[in-house]
Structure formats: structure tokens, C-alpha cells
């Protein structure tokens, strides 16, 4: 018996070593960092313990800008992408021929490198001395004014960021919703048809309640994912996000850690913990709402 008990831990050992070194220890360490004031990474010394790092971060103009950008991105993209994905999934569910082809095409953004395709979006939207770019050309066809979406006004940059984010997150949402729709028991639909129920009513009374757990799952993961937005912004606006005014909270954390403005693990830790607190709060609120309104 003793031999077997040793064995179980032996099988776990490699995983525990790695998790201990790169997850558990960092987790404790990040808390400590965030309370150490005036930490110097060269000499590894600090002056005192307190909340200064948090207050410094919360008063940083760049951090507030990052928070604003992140919240705007979340508020715009999460509902919009979920709604569009629901529409597309319903559309997919209603057809037979070509369905596989459409599904395959819709999934492509998932397997592409976010930074690489981001470059394509950049050249589509960017206005340079040589060309206004394709999107601006289209705007001009419809009689609009061309705008520089990459280096121009804030709303234009926000628009591109949201547009690209939606493009990137769509495959996952469509995939989850189409499989949820496909798993609704067809007998419910047959019964409703027998009774001559109108199709909108079928959707509202059968489809929506049956897939509501999956919709909430997508909303929750969508919130979490969008709060951590970073590489999409990097791909569109380059590595100096603060200068572009398009930084995100995660971007702020990394900028504090590394790069031209880096070298401050304490501020980075405080910002990361603030982000974690925000995400945790929003997820809890989401879970509370979903308990009330999701049909199981």
C-alpha cells in the first residue's frame, strides 16, 4: 500500500514541479511585488510595504486611458459578436447544402496568427501618402470622407480595433452556437410545428431557452477574453500603444514590465491584480445574472 501511494505522487511530480515554479510561486510573488514600494530590480531592494503601487497605477494617465479603451472594447465587441454569431449560427442551422463549406470558412480566423492577419487589416484601413487604402476607397464610392483609421481620430482607431476583434473571436462563437443549435431535440420543433406555432415564437420559446446556457458561456468567456485584449491592438497599431493612445490593460502591464517604459515589476503587478479584480467581479455578476435567467 505504501509503495502505491508513493507512486501516485511520482506520476504527479513533473506536473507539480512545473506548476509550482511557474504558477503557484509567481502567484504569491505577484502579490508581494504589488505591495513592495520602490522596488529596484537591479539591487532587488525596496523601501517599504504599502499601497503606493496601486495608487500610482490608478493615477497614471496611461493606465486610465488603457482602462477606458479596454472597457469600450468589451462593451462594444462582446454583445455585438455574440449577436452576430447567433444570427449566423441560426442561418447555418437552416441550410443543408454548403453548410460544411461555410463552417470551414468561418473557422479560418481561429487558426491564423493574430499578428500576421492584423497586418492585413492594417494595410486595408491605413491611409498613406501613396494610397488612401481600400476601405477609404470604398467609403469614397459611397460619397464619404476618407479617414485614417490607424493614425487618425480616436473613434476611427477604436472602430478598427473592435472590427478586428470581432473578426477574430467570431469562429469560436459560431462553432459553439452551431453545435448548441444542432443538439436541440428535434421533437420539440416537430411538436411546435404540429401546433402551427409561428417561427419567431418557436425561436423565442424553444430555441433560445434551450441554447441559453451556451450563450451565457460565450458571454462570460467573451468578457474574460476581451478584458485581456492585447495582441489585436499590437497587430494594428504597433508596439508603442501608449503613443497611439490605444493601449489596453494587459498592454499596460507588459509595458511596465518590459520595453522602453519597462523595469517596474511592482507597478506591473499592481495593474495585473487590478485587472484580475475587475475580471473576477464581472464574471461573478455574469454568473449571478445567468443563474436567474438561464433555463437548464
Amino acid at each position: 500500500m505504501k509503495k502505491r501511494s508513493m507512486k501516485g505522487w511520482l506520476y504527479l511530480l513533473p506536473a507539480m514541479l512545473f506548476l509550482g515554479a511557474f504558477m503557484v510561486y509567481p502567484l504569491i510573488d505577484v502579490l508581494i511585488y504589488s505591495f513592495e514600494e520602490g522596488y529596484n530590480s537591479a539591487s532587488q531592494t525596496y523601501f517599504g510595504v504599502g499601497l503606493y503601487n496601486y495608487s500610482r497605477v490608478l493615477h497614471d494617465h496611461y493606465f486610465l486611458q488603457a482602462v477606458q479603451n479596454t472597457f469600450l472594447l468589451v462593451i462594444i465587441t462582446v454583445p455585438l459578436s455574440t449577436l452576430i454569431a447567433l444570427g449566423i449560427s441560426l442561418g447555418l442551422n437552416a441550410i443543408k447544402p454548403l453548410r460544411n463549406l461555410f463552417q470551414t470558412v468561418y473557422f479560418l480566423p481561429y487558426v491564423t496568427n493574430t499578428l500576421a492577419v492584423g497586418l492585413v487589416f492594417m494595410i486595408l484601413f491605413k491611409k498613406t501618402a501613396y494610397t488612401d487604402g481600400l476601405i477609404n476607397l470604398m467609403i469614397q464610392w459611397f460619397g464619404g470622407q476618407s479617414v485614417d483609421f490607424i493614425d487618425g481620430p480616436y473613434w476611427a482607431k477604436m472602430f478598427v480595433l473592435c472590427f478586428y476583434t470581432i473578426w477574430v473571436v467570431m469562429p469560436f462563437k459560431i462553432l459553439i452556437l452551431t453545435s448548441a443549435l444542432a443538439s436541440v431535440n428535434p421533437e420539440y420543433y416537430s411538436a411546435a410545428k404540429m401546433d402551427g406555432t409561428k417561427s419567431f415564437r418557436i425561436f423565442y420559446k424553444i430555441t433560445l431557452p434551450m441554447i441559453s446556457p451556451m450563450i451565457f458561456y460565450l458571454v462570460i468567456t467573451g468578457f474574460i477574453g476581451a478584458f485581456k485584449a492585447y495582441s489585436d491592438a499590437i497587430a494594428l497599431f504597433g508596439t508603442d500603444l501608449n503613443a497611439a493612445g490605444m493601449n489596453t490593460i494587459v498592454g499596460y502591464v507588459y509595458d511596465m514590465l518590459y520595453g522602453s517604459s519597462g523595469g517596474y515589476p511592482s507597478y506591473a503587478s499592481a495593474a495585473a491584480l487590478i485587472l484580475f479584480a475587475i475580471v473576477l467581479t464581472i464574471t461573478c455578476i455574469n454568473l449571478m445574472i445567468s443563474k436567474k435567467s438561464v433555463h437548464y
Partner: protein
Amino acid sequence: MEKKMDFDKIERRAASRKRAFTAADYVLLTVWALMVLFPFYWMVLTSVKSYGSYNGEYIPRFFTLAPTLQNYQDAFTTVSLGRYFLNTIIYTVVTTGLMMAVIIPAAFAFARLDFPGKGIAFTLFLSLMMIPNELVVITNFVTITNLKLRNTFTGLILPSVTSVFYIYLLKENFEQIPDELYKAARVDGTSDFKYLTRVMIPISKPTLVTIVILKVIECWNSYVWPRLITDNPNYYLVSNGIQEIRENGFGRENIPAMMAAVVVISVPLIVLFLIFRKKVMAGVSRGGTKG
């Protein structure tokens, strides 16, 4: 007789309404498909336009009559795209291989072995699943820097060789294998390790393949950690390479060559996806996280 006529009419009207609905449905689906495909088309198109013709087009053209492969040659000779590519392949293969070697025994221990403290250990494991990567990256960065492992493959690979989530996924799968098999193997005197390699791994192959594919996608696209840990272009992965190219490769304006690099970077995963389409989609719907 008249009643029957009416009935026909209603049926015809319903059918034509259904046809119109289906047509509209196809149109909308096609619109989204075009939105998805267009950036890919544009990237391939731009990559085969010559430098001169691309910059000569004030109004971008939707096709080209004189495609050239010059940009692809430039992409490999002007910047070390081949190097980035090789690095990414090494990184992906080693990380995925090591991860499998770490998570299979762990999942096996949780699924089949009895040992004191298993319950607590598993609860702790599950609670680690909620920890976002952003929180631990800071200390890991400091750790790897202090160990002088910046700009090495070891530093790149070490922090990502375990995944609590994949251990969980695999454990669930292992548990579905009937216990009787295990008992029979014990009676026959088969060791735990032999049982794991001869019985459990072959049976769980679909799940293992899924995990491998998901990890490969993750490795291929990883950007944040490699960026923090490498500043020597000899160790850049493709994501960092593409960012480097964007910031100061090709003299900034050579967009066709840039697009050629983007095509080269995107193709491997797209091919992998088209080959394993069903497995990738099933895997992502069970364990995907992006989005």
C-alpha cells in the same frame, strides 16, 4: 373543389416564402464568408504584386495581371524569415512533446491511482485553472531573467510545458475507460506504467491528438511570452518576426514583401486545419479558449 384550390394556393405561398427566406439566408451567409475570406485574398494578392506596381496604384486593384514571386524571395533573403520559421517549429515541437510527457502521467495519477491527499491535490489543481496567465507572467519574466535564460529556447519553453486544463481534459477521458480493464491488467501482473502506455494511451488517442493540435495552434501563435523573453532576432518566433518586420524590416514601405511573409506564416496552420478539420473543430469546441 374550391376549398382544395385555396389549400394549394396557401401551400404554394408558404413554399415560395420559404424559398425567399432560404435565398436571403444564403446571401447573408455568403456575405460573412466573403468578410472572412477577403483579408486572406488581399494578403495573397498583395504578396504577388510587384513592389513597383503596388506602390504605383493609388487606387488598389482587385487583381493583378503580372503576378510575381519576387516578394517571397525577398521575404526569405532580406529578413531571416527562415530562421523565425525554424525557431517556431523547434519551439512548437519541443513544447508540445514535453507537455504531453508531463500531463499524461499527471492525468493518469488523478484518474486511476489511489494515493493519500489526492482529493486535496485535485481541488488545488482545479483552482489553478482560474488563474489568468497575465498574473504569473510578471514573476516568470523575472525568474527567467535572473536564471540568465533570456534568449534561450529553455527560457522560451519552460513556463508553458504544463497546462492544468489539458490535464483535466485528459483525466476526464481516462476515467471513461472501463475500470474492469485496469483490474484485469492488475490481475495479469501488468505494471501501472505498462498499462498506461499499452492500454490507456492507445484508447485515448483521439483526445491526445486533439490536445496536440490545440497546443500546436497555441504555440504557433504565441506572442507575449516570446516577446518578453527574446530580444535577439536569432531566437524570434514568427509572431515576433512579423512584428519586427512591421517595425523595421524591408524599409517599412515594402508592403508586398511583408504580405509574402504573412502568407508564409499563415499557411502551415491553415493546411494543418484543412487536413484535421473535424478534429480541430471538435477539439476547440471542447477545449478552446480564444474568443
